[in-house]
């Protein structure tokens, strides 16, 4: 029974890393098809972090980011967040909408919807591969988007972790196109019981 992140051993972490790998692999493919550009994916990083370290992974508390958040329900519960650096978000929208914008204030409602929809499509790809891998039912909510300081955005999943412990577990995968600069991260945040469910479904419990 896993009731604390400290109980996860290196085998567990490897398995969670592999989940990040497969999920993000599918998501990256979906994104690549969407914008018709080659996108590379980094090696997933699984880390157990203290709350005060959380924002460091996305460039510090005050770094402006775009966070697209999904609640996940079903046999796995928790949150999933798709994080884009501001410049990356600009580039994605520009590629999709054929614009050349460099400031969020210039974005129209339509552009922001497009960005949200990108999040929706690729997060869907991530979660559906996680679902097939584990044979667990996973349902994502509609996407919620916020553009703000990293610390402020990450406080939302952090608070969820805070209810059960003093640290947060991140399965983080970055991706990016060499030329296109569309770097971003996926952060999968299952709640505590869901770790057991995920690991059990893969034959480890």
């Amino acid at each position: 029974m896993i009731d604390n992140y400290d109980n996860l051993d290196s085998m567990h972490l490897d398995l969670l890393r592999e989940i990040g790998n497969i999920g993000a692999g599918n998501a990256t493919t979906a994104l690549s098809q969407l914008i018709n550009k080659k996108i590379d994916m980094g090696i997933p990083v699984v880390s157990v972090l203290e709350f005060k370290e959380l924002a460091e992974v996305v460039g510090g508390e005050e770094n402006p980011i775009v966070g697209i958040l999904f609640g996940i329900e079903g046999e796995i519960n928790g949150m999933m967040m798709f994080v884009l650096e501001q410049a990356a978000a600009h580039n994605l929208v520009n590629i999709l909408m054929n614009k050349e914008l460099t400031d969020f204030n210039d974005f129209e409602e339509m552009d922001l919807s497009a960005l949200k929809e990108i999040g929706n499509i690729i997060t869907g790809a991530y979660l559906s591969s996680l679902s097939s891998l584990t044979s667990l039912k996973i349902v994502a909510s509609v996407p919620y988007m916020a553009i703000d300081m990293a610390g402020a955005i990450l406080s939302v999943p952090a608070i969820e972790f805070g209810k059960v412990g003093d640290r947060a577990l991140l399965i983080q995968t970055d991706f990016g196109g060499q030329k296109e600069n569309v770097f971003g991260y996926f952060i999968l945040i299952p709640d505590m019981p869901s770790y057991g469910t995920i690991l059990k479904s893969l034959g480890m419990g």
Partner: protein
Amino acid sequence: MNDKIKVGMADLKSCKKPEVLTTLGLGSCVGIILYDPVSKVSGLAHVMLPDSTQIRNNSNVAKFADTAVDKLIDDMVKLGANRSRLVSKIAGGAQMFSFDSANEMMRIGERNAKATKAKLAALGIRLLAEDTGKNYGRTIEFYSETGDLLVKTIGKEPKTI
């Protein structure tokens, strides 16, 4: 001037004048400033959750509005603050994502701010100013010398409360 004293998420610190306390990127969390205007001993807590009694794992007192305020007062008294003179300012408690559901869990920012105010009221600590709610992140800096709280947000002019 010396470097500012940085307070992380689920953390609290106190200081004497002329030091400056800061916490960066407050979202749904609440930054609680306590201040003794005479000795100028100041404290800042960055709390994540409203109520320690609702949570089983509650060993980190800085995480909760109720326990963080108690601990902060103790720390400040040790630095020379007078408990009966303490006043407060708070910021944060935003709702970062516009969830359409009225789910209590999703309105955590509002609950954090409310719980903080209730705790301060229960202890008879006057709330001098607040900048809470809305949907944006805040960086705050508290100047122990003057008692000013600077609130910075993206895309807006900084303000002092």
